[in-house]
């Protein structure tokens, strides 16, 4: 069964500093990978996705992620964090069940930004 691990429950960074959120997946085939962001009291917004091709994908709000098959990782990065980036970040892997898509989420990483 596929699974997603986000080893960091909480991360605190200073505004303007760089950010990397870790994500490791376990999946037999080529995965469809996603990063979602959830601001307090809000729904889930898709930041970026990887399906195939270039292993470095660009997303919204200046985020990027790199797919590394050898490490089973899909880490999220941002060169300079803004205070508004404080939120919960979820990595997810998608499996096509043949009749529907099943998105399995990691446990999330809460990002705090110090001003």
């Amino acid at each position, binding site marked *: 069964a596929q699974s997603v691990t986000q080893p960091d429950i909480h991360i605190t960074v200073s505004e303007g500093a760089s950010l990397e959120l870790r994500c490791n997946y376990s999946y037999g085939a080529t995965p469809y990978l996603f990063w979602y962001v959830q601001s307090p009291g809000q729904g*889930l917004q898709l930041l970026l996705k990887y399906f195939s091709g270039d292993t470095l994908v660009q997303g919204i709000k200046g985020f990027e992620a790199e797919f590394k098959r050898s490490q089973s990782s899909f880490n999220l990065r941002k060169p300079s964090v803004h205070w508004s980036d404080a939120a919960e970040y979820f990595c997810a892997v998608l499996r096509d069940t043949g009749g*529907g898509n*099943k998105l399995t*989420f990691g*446990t*999330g990483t*809460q990002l705090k930004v110090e001003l």
Partner: protein
Amino acid sequence: DTAVSQTPKYLVTQMGNDKSIKCEQNLGHDTMYWYKQDSKKFLKIMFSYNNKELIINETVPNRFSPKSPDKAHLNLHINSLELGDSAVYFCASSSGPKLFFGSGTQLSVL
């Protein structure tokens, strides 16, 4: 012009009551989902419907009954609510591998 909309946003109710959460999408997608986010923020799929047909049913108590009157709507009815049902419930839709989520319904069972 909200793509996936859920109502209500907040729902506070007593144990034992029956309640429903409604979801509508205007994206023309064929597939809709219900996800549950628990108090530790863990998100897990509950159900998925494709063209009004149930295609994914995770191990959810049968007190939870999804209903899809048409492919733009997926409602979630919960009977005999329990304290452990308190969570945020998210509706989502897709026409391929990309899911679009609603803003969630926070259910509090007292």
